[in-house]
């Protein structure tokens, strides 16, 4: 479904290279987890896939269902069914969750040739999705993320994912900031959304969420590259041992890590 080939990315503004040749293939029905130290490039990878303009792809390609999406704007990629749950969800004061999502849903539906929903139909549809992650109905009437607690913002991202029903979702540290019960509920919601036709990529620092959502593949990103891939056991090993054993000496000193 998504193929990332030898992806090199730098910051548009000053040319700093952040991703240094990432390779990743994600198929339908799969759940991937990406782990790795702070600043290694996990969020950058998610944002580049989603089409953020602050980054420039200098080499490599990103293929969605076999076609390059590098030339597409962020909204056009969203229309294809690509979703990003943000590590830091943005507040949009004065715009209700409901309005944003109905407009988003209908824009995407229109692009994909599906039926649009009128306000009443959408209300019912959204209620169902709220139940999925046990979010209180008043949240859809509130301004997008404005005044939401950290955990509420994360949950709201998954609610949006549920509503938009994307083909592939990048969830950037959705688990950070969720309390123990919320983590279970949200994980449960993600499990219900994930099926044979879509794919989920979870960026996380903790293996805890992987107890609820079993990944088919676990990757470790270090200094802009996938340093190692494996299965769920890799996550457990990382939890026990940290990243040191994966870091090449040269990189370690640059990162100020012990050596």
């Amino acid at each position: 479904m998504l193929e990332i080939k030898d992806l090199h990315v730098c910051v548009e503004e000053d040319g700093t290279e952040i991703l240094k040749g990432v390779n990743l293939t994600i198929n339908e029905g799969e759940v991937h987890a990406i782990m790795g130290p702070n600043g290694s490039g996990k969020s950058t990878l998610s944002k580049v896939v989603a089409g953020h303009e602050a980054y420039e792809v200098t080499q490599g390609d990103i293929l969605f269902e076999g076609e390059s999406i590098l030339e597409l704007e962020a909204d056009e990629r969203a229309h294809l069914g690509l979703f990003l749950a943000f590590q830091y969800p943005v507040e949009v004061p004065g715009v209700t969750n409901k309005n944003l999502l109905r407009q988003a849903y209908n824009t995407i539906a229109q692009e994909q040739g599906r039926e649009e929903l009128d306000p009443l139909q959408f209300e019912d549809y959204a209620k169902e999705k709220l139940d999925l992650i046990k979010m209180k109905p008043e949240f859809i009437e509130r301004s997008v993320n404005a005044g939401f607690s950290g955990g509420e913002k994360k949950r709201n991202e998954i609610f949006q994912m549920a509503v938009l029903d994307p083909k592939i979702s990048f969830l950037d540290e959705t688990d950070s900031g969720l309390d123990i019960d919320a983590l279970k509920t949200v994980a449960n919601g993600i499990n219900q959304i994930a099926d044979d036709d879509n794919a989920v990529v979870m960026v996380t620092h903790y293996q805890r969420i992987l107890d609820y959502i079993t990944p088919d593949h676990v990757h470790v990103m270090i200094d802009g590259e996938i340093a190692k891939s494996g299965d769920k056991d890799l996550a457990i090993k990382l939890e026990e041992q940290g990243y040191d054993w994966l870091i090449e000496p040269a990189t370690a000193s640059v990162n100020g890590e012990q050596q």
Partner: protein
Amino acid sequence: MSETEALESMVGGEYKYGFTTDVEYEDFPKGINEDIIREISRRKDEPEWVLEFRLEAFEKWKQMEEPDWPNVEYEKPNFDEIQYYSSTKKKDGKKPESLDEVDDQILETYEKLGIPLEEQKQLQGVAVDAVFDSESIFTTFKEKLAEAGVIFCSISEAIQDHPELVKEYMGSVVPKGDNFYAALNSAVFSDGSFVYVPEDTVCPMDLSTYFRINNMQSGQFERTLIICEDNSHVSYLEGCTAPMYQENQLHAAVVELVALEDAEIKYSTIQNWYSGDEEGQGGIFNFVTKRGHCRGDNSKISWTQVETGSAITWKYPSVIMQGDGSIGEFFSVAVTNNRQQADTGTKMIHVGKDTKSTIISKGISAGESDNSYRGLVKISPRAENAQNYSVCDSMLIGQTCGAHTFPYIESANPTAKVEHEASTSRVGEDQIFYLQQRGMDEDDAISLIVNGFCKEVLQELPMEFAVEADKLLGIKLEGSVG
């Protein structure tokens, strides 16, 4: 209109109202002097007292200097080059009695502007006074309003038909010599609307005036007067557009509102005069004096404005709260793009006891424009327990625009409570990216963010106007993040 339609109509982004109507005008000399003023008064067949009003104002104006305190820069108009009266040729030289007598071209113009005047097509629930250059062309639903005792006509007609009312109230809120442009207006004023709502009456429909400047040489100097007697209520809307000309045109209006005991006036404006091109060529100079007088106890005057047009705007709709317990409100969205400059705000003058005012101002600047809020809250010694609450938010789009706030507070009564909040934010790349990631294109994303920012003000507008305002904001800011 569905949301998608509203969105589609944003595509294009051009000023839609920039066309010119090709009509024949009566000759009228340019420039300003006593003879010109006499001639205006003669053509309008005015009684002597109106001519005197004009001449006195002209005397005052001659002594005055154009103010330079607003935070705007422009080349001062050449007052000798302006045509102060502009009237289209009529079949028999009189104002049309029925629509059949109105020039087809003018009817078409209003149709194109979305304000059809023909009976079958008229907007329901809204009576319209259509002002074309210096004249009121037609007023709809007059008879229906008359049944309720409400008078809605052009000010010229009111001078003829209800002189006692005009004489009593005109100039009583904005005196002839109030300021430079108010004095000029008082000398040469052309048409505008007149509204009178008698005691214990809720006006059965919204009233609205649609102002159109068409003539390239003429300025527009309309004058509007609204009087609400005890315990009555009216909602009035005004809309404005003009063709795209290379030259600047002057629009200097005066609006006076009088609310007696327990009366309530709600005045909403969507100002979309031509704002000039990207380089700042052309556009309207919008120098307007608007003031409301809460004369009776527990009366209320509320201004809502969405200012998107004009090259330069200079406007401070104000309320004098004289009656005890009276309320003044000001809700404003001012958008500037390209080279536009706006210096706008309000004055809330608390005179009576227990008076309350609210100011919500949202300024949005994009392009290379400059947007200033200037507001005065004044509490007189007698105004026990007066309260004011002001919020003044600015939003910047891009790096080359400016936002400024100049709040002035003068309180002479220690029991008064005055609260002022202000904020400035920038529409960030991250906010736009977030919405784009959810499937919206960049323009829709900005439009959504801006509409959210202005929500408290937009929800004050009557329904039809809210839809219009929503579209306008979108069009206005299209492509403003480059």
